[in-house]
């Protein structure tokens, strides 16, 4: 297996909320200003009063939401989907799986890889099918309702437009949930059957904080670069004081047994000894107490992982006194519940690469496979819920096919756009933004060379920064779908971590509720419900 580890990135909720507030606030402010202008233009002096009257009315609508009415619309939506045989996709799904078993038989040389393939297949199929059904259903729901005028009979009842939007979202959401759960169960059974004889695991990783020591033992934030373009790993030099220092928060339950699991990368500058790979060792340390507890060295496995059990009581040879001693993991070594582990490479002239995701402490016992599997399903579910919200919102102001197209853009084309905008916003796009590019085009300057005229370049960059603010907003308006894919964790037999996977997806999905409902409400209230 490739030595690729999953890189956990902790989600900063406070920062997320702050960004949400900035983006939401800005968009709200801009729309308010635009409506104010529009109202002035159409109604003259009485415009603003009308606008604020309307907004007050909207506030009332939001204050007096009725759960019963929302439920009525949701139930209607659910019934509609079920009676229109939306659940038929489930049959498609089952058939797909029957055929898949023929083609996806494992080669059993690398059992973990087989499992990864099975899990990947299940999640990809389920995601696409549910997204497809959920998207089409919710894109066409309201427009059909308007076209057939059945909405006329509904909106002439005291139901508020926001209740319709919410009810629709809830209804389509529950249809998708039902489909997802059914498929999830079948998928799990299929995986379990496919991987008979293999162990399905759900290891619970505790990831650490990583910093590096250079060859003199001084602290640096980055390791060495051995010439990789993508610098995911920092390298440490063997036979020196260089080390990768991981700090782990130990579980509060203080289990008797922990397991260190790592998957480091070796970089050789010479052949070394033929009969073994590069050697490394862990050193547990507590600087406050001046404790250094080296564990036995091990050969770095390059295509699978190194595992080492660490018991609570550790006996070791003190490096200074050369005496045998025993320490307690929690009482002696841990510092405020944090354990520090230095990873050192022992071969002189060889290098060892480490990243945060390469080394984790595994909490024993493992969770059941179902736990991780269903957590990742929650990820898919959140993505579907987000799609339903966006689709229903879109269908409030455009017709079904256009809404579909819009969703497609957001979900599929949104990703490359995201990356591109990322670069533009951070100023990493080669050749600069629009104005600078245009200048380069006209002056026939190369994209990568700095412009001769420093002054000119600075001015152009400043001009380009202006729209980049709005681009930053635009970038944050499009959801980043990568947040929701958690199948990789399950495929690798890992539990889905809360802070770096579950929490961000939850936050993203939650962040869209209010804007979507607001947008849907206003578009549904301000338009005539007559098909054009």
């Amino acid at each position, binding site marked *: 297996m490739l030595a690729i580890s999953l890189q956990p990135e902790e989600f900063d909720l406070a920062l997320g909320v702050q960004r949400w507030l900035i983006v939401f606030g800005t968009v709200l402010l801009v729309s308010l200003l635009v409506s104010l202008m529009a109202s002035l233009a159409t109604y003259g002096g009485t415009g603003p009063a009308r606008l604020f009257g309307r907004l007050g*009315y909207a506030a009332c609508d939001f204050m007096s939401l009725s759960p019963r*009415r929302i439920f009525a619309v949701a139930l209607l939506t659910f019934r509609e989907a079920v*009676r229109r045989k939306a659940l038929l996709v489930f049959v498609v799904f089952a058939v797909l799986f029957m055929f898949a078993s023929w083609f996806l038989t494992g080669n059993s040389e690398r059992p973990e890889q087989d499992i990864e393939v099975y899990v990947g297949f299940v999640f990809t199929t389920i995601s696409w099918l549910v997204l497809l059904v959920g998207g089409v259903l919710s894109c066409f729901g309201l427009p059909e309702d308007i076209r057939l*005028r059945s909405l*006329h*009979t509904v909106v002439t009842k*005291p139901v*508020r437009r926001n209740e319709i939007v919410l009810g629709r979202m809830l209804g389509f959401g529950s249809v998708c949930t039902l489909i997802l759960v059914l498929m999830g169960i079948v998928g799990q059974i299929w995986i379990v059957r496919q991987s008979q004889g293999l162990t399905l695991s759900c290891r619970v990783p505790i990831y650490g904080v990583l910093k590096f020591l250079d060859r003199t033992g001084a602290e640096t934030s980055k390791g060495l670069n051995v010439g990789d373009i993508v610098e995911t790993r920092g390298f440490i030099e063997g036979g020196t004081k260089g080390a990768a220092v991981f700090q782990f928060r130990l579980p509060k339950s203080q289990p008797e047994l922990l397991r260190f699991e790592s998957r480091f990368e070796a970089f050789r500058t010479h052949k070394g000894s033929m009969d073994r790979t590069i050697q490394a060792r862990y050193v547990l340390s507590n600087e406050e107490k001046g404790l250094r507890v080296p564990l036995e060295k091990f050969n770095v496995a390059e295509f699978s992982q190194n595992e080492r059990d660490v018991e609570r009581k550790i006996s070791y040879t003190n490096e200074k006194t050369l005496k045998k001693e025993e320490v307690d993991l929690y009482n002696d070594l841990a510092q405020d519940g944090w354990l520090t582990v230095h990873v050192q490479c022992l071969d002189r002239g060889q290098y060892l690469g480490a990243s945060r995701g390469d080394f984790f402490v595994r909490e024993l016992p493992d969770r059941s496979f179902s736990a991780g599997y269903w957590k990742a399903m929650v990820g898919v579910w959140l993505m579907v819920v987000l799609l339903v919200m966006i689709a229903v919102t879109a269908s409030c102001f455009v017709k079904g096919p256009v809404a579909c197209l819009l969703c497609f853009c957001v979900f599929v084309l949104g990703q490359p756009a995201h990356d591109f905008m990322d670069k533009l916003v951070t100023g990493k796009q080669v050749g600069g933004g629009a104005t600078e590019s245009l200048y380069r085009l006209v002056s026939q300057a190369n994209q990568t060379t700095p412009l001769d005229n420093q002054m000119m370049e600075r001015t152009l960059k400043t001009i380009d920064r202006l729209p980049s603010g709005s681009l930053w907003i635009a970038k944050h308006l499009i959801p980043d779908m990568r947040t929701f894919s958690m199948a990789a964790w399950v495929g690798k037999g890992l539990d889905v971590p809360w802070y770096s996977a579950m929490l961000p997806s939850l936050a993203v999905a939650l962040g869209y509720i209010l804007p979507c409902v607001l947008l849907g409400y206003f578009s549904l209230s301000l338009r005539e*419900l007559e098909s054009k």
Partner: protein
Amino acid sequence: MSAEAVIQIRNLSKIYRDFWGRKKVRALNSLSLEVYRGEVFGLLGPNGSGKTTTMKLLLGLLFPTEGEISILGKSATDVSKNERIGYLPEESYLYRFLNANETLDFYGRLFNMSGETRRKRTEELIEMVGLQHARRRQLKEYSKGMTRRIGLAQALINDPDLVLLDEPTSGLDPQGSRDMKDLIMRLKSQGKTVIMSSHLLADVQDVCDRIAILYGGELKELGRVDELLKERNVSQMQTSSISDACLDEVKAVLAKHNVEFHKVDHPTNSLEELFLKTVERSQQRPGQRYVPESEAAKGGTAS
């Protein structure tokens, strides 16, 4: 009139525009009328004259291009007015995948009714419209008349004070229209206000207190049915039966005042005659509009 106006329409105009905002149709032109509490008001007019448009404007389904509407003292776009309104659309735009019970239950929920009330109301209404035998069949299997009936039931689910019926008798069998007319009279006797549009003039003549005749989006006639149907410049005599010989003498006799008069009256037309006459006149003299006397006195807007 001293009665309270439930609906007030002032200078209402509606222009349908297409997607790009270009004018398509001028469906209503400066319509002004009032409907009073407790009366049955009929909207008449040939196809495409703007009856449905008026109703939709009243309900806030469409937004007026010009003019103002006050309905139950509120603006047409205020959703809370719907608490007291029942609406039967031109065609019953209902969810075809629901059955009768579910349909009424759904609309009941929209009025925030409790489960108990909903069940009771559903029971009553299904009985009233005579759909007991088909209550568990999906609406897509219903005939036109049956759909009409369930549509009516849904309009009455909240026991509304103001009922708007767009062509209530279309698609109903004779018994059904009879029942519908009885129902309208019953609603009136309960003090409710009913606005209906119809082509079936006999129906309108039977039940309506006042009518408005629209043509090409303009108001051509407005008034009490019995007043409108009176011919003022002709007199009609009803006498005891007279012989042929007597008949020749009648003119002479008239001058001499020696016939026993049973009744002297203005003859009434059938509504059909009035309707056709109005339409014909409108075709001959387009642009002439009905102007209420009060406004005419003020030198109103007749063109």
